[in-house]
C-alpha cells in the first residue's frame, strides 16, 4: 500500500475488510502524517496514543461487519468526546473534559471508527475562516496563508491534507459547505432534525446541524447513513424513515428537475463563479436532469435575518459559560465582577460581538423589530423553498460567492466576512439539506464548490445528483504538501 492516507473512506474500508491493511497500519499512517503537518494547525487536541491503542485492540478482535472497521478519524472540536478535551475553539472551555459523548460521535464509534483527535474550528463555530479560534488560525493545504473556510476549518483542512480519511463538522450558516467548497472537498448539511444535537456545543440551536465531510460523495453518503439517527435526548430530533444512503446511492438522475434560482445571481459575483455555475448546469443536463429557472424572492433578506436569529440564540446558549461550574474562571471581587472578567477574558472578539448583537435584538423594545421580524422573514424564506419544490426536486447554486481568501484579509471587516455565507444561510433558515461538491477552481487555482439544495428529508436525492455530477466534473484537488519540510 503506497499511501494509505490518500485513499477515500470507501477504499480504506474495503482494504481493511479484505485484510490488506490493518487498523494499526492505517492509524499509524494518519498519525505520522498528522505529526508532519502540525504547521497547518488543524488539531486542537491530538489523541494519537489512545488511537493507536484502540487500533491494536481492533486488530486483535476485528469486526468486519461494522461500517467503519478500525478506521481512524478526527472530528471537529465542537463534539463532546468522553474523556477527551473539548474546547469549541474557545479559551473559556480550554480545560474542559466531558464525561459524556455526543450522539453523533457515539454513532461513529459504534461502527468501529477510532478517534484521532479534535480539530480546530472557529470559536463556538462563529466564523467563516477559522480565524476566530483561540487556538490560532488554520492553514489551508491548498496554499500557504490561505483560509480553509469556517467554522469547520480544521475539519476541511485535515481532510484535504489527508490527515483524516473522513470527518464531521457542524453547519449553522454554512460551516460545513463553505470550508468544503474552499478546500475542494464534499460537505453535507443534513435536514434539521436528521442528526442529533445531543453533546454538540450549541451555537444557534434552531440552525445547528452536524454533517459529514469527505473526499467524495460516496463516502459522504456512508457517513451520513451512520450519523443520522433519531435521538430521544434531542427534542428537535425527527423520527423519519432514513435511507441506507450509501446503498441506495445512484448516478441515475434522469428526469430529475433542478431549479436555478435567479436571486442567487448577486451583484459583484466573480465571472469564474458564474462560469462554474453554468458548467454545473450543463453537467446536470448531461446527466439527464431537466433545468428550470425558479425564484426564491426573499433571498436578499436571509443574511440579515440569519444575523439576528443566530446571535440571539447564541447570546442565550453561551450564558452558561460563566466561570461557576466548569471551564475558565477569572477571579473577581464579587459575582458580577467574576462574570465580567471571566467572560471578557474567556470569549474572543467575534463571540463577544455576536453575544452583544444577540442580547440587543432580544431586549425589550427591540424584540419585535428584530427578533420577531427575523422569524417572520424566516417563515417567508421557508415558503419560498416550499413554492419552488412544487416545481423542482432540487436547487443548484454556487456554494460561496468567492473562493478562499488570504488569512487576515477580512478580519477587520465582519460584514464582508458575513457575506461569505450568502448562499448557504437560507438553507439553514429553512432547515433543508444541502451538499457542496468541488466543481472547479478560480483564477488562482483555488477550489470552488457547487451547492445542491434538497427538500427536507430528501438527502438521498441530493446525494444522487451530487454523485452523478461528480462523475462528470472529475475534480482533482492539487495538494502539494507545501507545509511538509
Amino acid at each position, binding site marked *: 500500500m503506497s499511501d494509505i492516507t490518500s485513499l477515500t473512506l470507501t477504499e480504506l474500508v474495503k482494504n481493511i475488510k479484505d485484510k490488506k491493511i490493518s487498523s494499526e497500519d492505517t492509524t499509524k499512517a494518519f498519525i505520522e502524517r498528522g505529526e508532519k503537518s502540525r504547521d497547518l494547525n488543524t488539531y486542537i487536541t491530538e489523541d494519537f496514543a489512545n488511537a493507536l491503542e484502540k487500533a491494536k485492540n481492533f486488530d486483535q478482535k476485528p469486526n468486519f461487519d461494522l461500517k467503519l472497521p478500525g478506521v481512524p478519524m478526527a472530528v471537529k472540536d465542537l463534539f463532546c468526546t468522553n474523556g477527551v478535551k*473539548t474546547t469549541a475553539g474557545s479559551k473559556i472551555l480550554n480545560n474542559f473534559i466531558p464525561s*459524556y459523548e455526543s450522539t453523533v460521535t457515539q454513532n461513529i464509534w459504534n461502527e468501529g471508527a477510532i478517534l484521532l483527535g479534535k480539530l480546530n474550528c472557529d470559536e463556538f463555530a462563529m466564523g467563516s475562516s477559522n480565524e476566530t479560534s483561540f487556538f490560532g488560525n488554520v492553514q489551508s493545504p491548498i496554499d500557504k496563508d490561505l483560509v480553509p473556510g469556517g467554522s469547520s476549518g480544521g475539519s476541511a483542512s485535515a481532510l484535504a491534507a489527508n490527515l483524516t480519511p473522513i470527518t464531521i463538522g457542524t453547519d449553522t450558516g454554512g460551516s460545513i459547505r463553505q470550508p468544503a467548497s474552499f478546500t475542494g472537498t464534499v460537505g453535507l448539511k443534513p435536514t434539521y432534525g436528521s442528526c442529533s444535537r445531543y453533546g*454538540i456545543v450549541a451555537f444557534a*440551536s434552531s440552525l445547528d446541524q452536524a454533517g459529514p465531510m469527505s473526499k467524495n460523495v460516496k463516502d459522504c453518503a456512508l457517513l451520513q447513513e451512520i450519523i443520522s439517527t433519531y435521538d430521544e435526548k434531542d*427534542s428537535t430530533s425527527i423520527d423519519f424513515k432514513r435511507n441506507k444512503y450509501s446503498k441506495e446511492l445512484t448516478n441515475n438522475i434522469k428526469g430529475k428537475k433542478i431549479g436555478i434560482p435567479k436571486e442567487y445571481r448577486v451583484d459583484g459575483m466573480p465571472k469564474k463563479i458564474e462560469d462554474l455555475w453554468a458548467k454545473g448546469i450543463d453537467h446536470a443536463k448531461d446527466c439527464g436532469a431537466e433545468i428550470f429557472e425558479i425564484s426564491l424572492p426573499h433571498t436578499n433578506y436571509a443574511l440579515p435575518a440569519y444575523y439576528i436569529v443566530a446571535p440571539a440564540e447564541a*447570546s442565550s446558549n453561551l*450564558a*452558561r459559560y460563566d466561570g*461557576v461550574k466548569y471551564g475558565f474562571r477569572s477571579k473577581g471581587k464579587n459575582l458580577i465582577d467574576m462574570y465580567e472578567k471571566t467572560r471578557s477574558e474567556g470569549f474572543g472578539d467575534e463571540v463577544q460581538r455576536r453575544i452583544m448583537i444577540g442580547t440587543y435584538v432580544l431586549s425589550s423594545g427591540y*424584540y419585535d423589530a428584530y427578533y420577531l421580524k427575523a422569524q417572520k422573514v424566516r417563515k417567508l424564506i421557508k415558503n419560498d423553498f416550499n413554492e419552488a419544490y412544487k416545481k423542482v426536486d432540487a436547487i443548484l447554486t454556487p456554494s460561496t460567492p468567492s473562493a478562499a481568501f488570504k488569512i487576515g484579509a477580512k478580519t477587520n471587516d465582519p460584514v464582508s466576512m458575513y457575506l461569505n455565507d450568502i448562499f448557504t444561510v437560507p438553507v439553514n433558515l429553512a432547515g433543508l439539506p444541502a451538499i457542496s461538491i468541488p466543481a472547479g477552481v478560480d483564477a488562482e487555482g483555488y477550489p470552488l464548490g457547487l451547492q445542491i439544495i434538497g427538500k427536507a428529508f430528501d438527502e438521498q436525492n441530493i446525494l444522487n445528483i451530487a454523485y452523478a455530477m461528480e462523475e462528470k466534473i472529475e475534480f482533482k484537488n492539487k495538494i502539494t504538501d507545501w507545509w511538509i519540510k
Partner: protein
Amino acid sequence: MTKDNSEYLIERYNNIYEVVIGLEVHAQVTSNSKLFSSSSTTFGAEPNTQVSLVDAAFPGMLPVINEYCVKQAIKTGIGLKAEINKRSVFDRKNYFYADLPQGYQISQFKHPIVGEGTVILDMPNGQKEVGIERLHLEQDAGKSIHDMDPKNTLVDLNRSGVALMEIVSKPDMRTPDEVSAYVKKLRSIMRYLGTCDGNMEEGSLRADVNISVRIKGSDKLGTRCEIKNVNSIKFMQMAIDYEANRQVDLIEEGKTIDQETRLFDTKKNETRSMRSKEDAHDYRYFPDPDLLPLEVTDEFIEKLKTDIPELPDDKKKRFIDKFKVSPYEATILVSDIDIAKYFEEVIAKSDVKLATNWITSELFAVLNNKNLEISQSPISAKNLSKLINLIKNGTISGKIAKTIFELMMDGDKDPQIIVEEKNLKQESDPKALEALIDKIINDNREKAIEYKQGKEKLFGFFVGQAMKVSGGKANPQLINEILKKKL
C-alpha cells in the same frame, strides 16, 4: 383601622382605603424526576447529589420535557376549572445568577399551558370567587448558600430544574383572610389531585404577593408592589398588613408609590425595597429553540379528566346533601384530603353525627396539641369508628368514651379491648340500678325529703351520687328514669 372577617379597610382622616391583592403562587409539581431531566427531586438530599448534566448545564446538554409534569399541570388546571391550552410554548427567561446554571430559566411566558380559571373560597360571610389568570410550568433554580463559608458563596443544584407551577391569580382578594383562604384552598385542591404536596416548610409552596391600595369604591387599580417569595400564610398576612399601611401613608403624605419589587423581613416585620421598575431585569424572553411547542390533544386532556378525584367543593356538597353535615363542619372536613379520607373511613362503619363531633372536637384538639397532621393521628379511623359504635349501642356512655379515647392514644388501642380490660361497660341492668339507687336514697334520707318538699335542684345531686358510686358506668338515661320513680 377596621378589621373583621368580611372587610379589611384602612382609615386615615376622611379617607377609607381598600386593599387589592393578587398572588403568584409557585407550587412544586409532585414528580419523582425534574421538568427536563431524569434527576431525582427528593427533598433534603446531600447537596449536589441530585444533579444531572442537563441540570448543571454542561455543554451540548439538551432539555427533554417530562410528560408526567405536563400531566400534573393539566390536572391542576382541570382542578382550577381552567381552560387547558392545547398548544403552549416554553421560553427562555435570561438572567445571570450563580445558582442558575444555564444562564436562563425555562418558563412559559406568552403561551402558558393553562389559562383562566376559578377558585371558590368559603368565607364566614359566604362564598367568594377568585379568578385564576393562568398557570404555567417552569424550572426552579438551585440554591445559593451564603453562610456556610466565610469567603465564598456555595451553590446546591439539587433543586435546579425541579418542575414548578406558577399559578397567577387575578387581583380579586381584598383582605388578609381571603389570601389565607385562597392559599389554603389552592393547596387543598392540589393535594386532592396529588399534583403538589403543598409543604410550605420545605418550600414546595411559596408566593409572590402583589398589593395595591385605592380609595374604597374606586374602580381604578393603584400602583402595585410585589413582595417576593413569602413562604408562610402568616407572613403573607403580616406582609400585606405592613405593605398596605405603608402605601396608604405614602398617599396620605401626597407621595407616589413606586412600582417595585420588595422583600418581607420576617424579623423586623416590614417590607423593604429590592429593586425598582427601572432596575428591573430585562429577561429577554424568547421561545426556547431546544424545545418544540408543547402540543396536547383533546383525547389526552379527556383521559386526564377521568383521573380527577372528587374535589373539595363537590365533596362538601355531597357531605351536606348525603350526610346532613352542616356547611360549617363540611368545610372543615373537606379542607384537607387526609381529613376527608379519615372522616369517610370512620362514617363508613359508624354514625355520621357522632363521628363529625368526635373528629372536629376531640380528635382535632389532640392533633392541635401535639402538632400532628391527621395522617399522623394516634388513633386510626378504624378504632375511632369502633368507639363511636360503642357509644351508639349503649355499651359505654359519652363520658366513659372520653376516658377510653385518652387510653386509645397509647398505641392506637382497640376501644373494645379497653372496655373489657378496664371493665368500663355501662351498667344498664334496671334491677342492679334500682338496688343502687335504693341504697343512695337510704343513705341520704334528709336530702330525699327536701327534694320531695320541692327542692328540685337536688335531683342532680342524686344523679351525681349514682354516677359516682357506679364509677361512671351507670346508664345515665336509666338512672334518670329510676330516680324520678323512686323519689
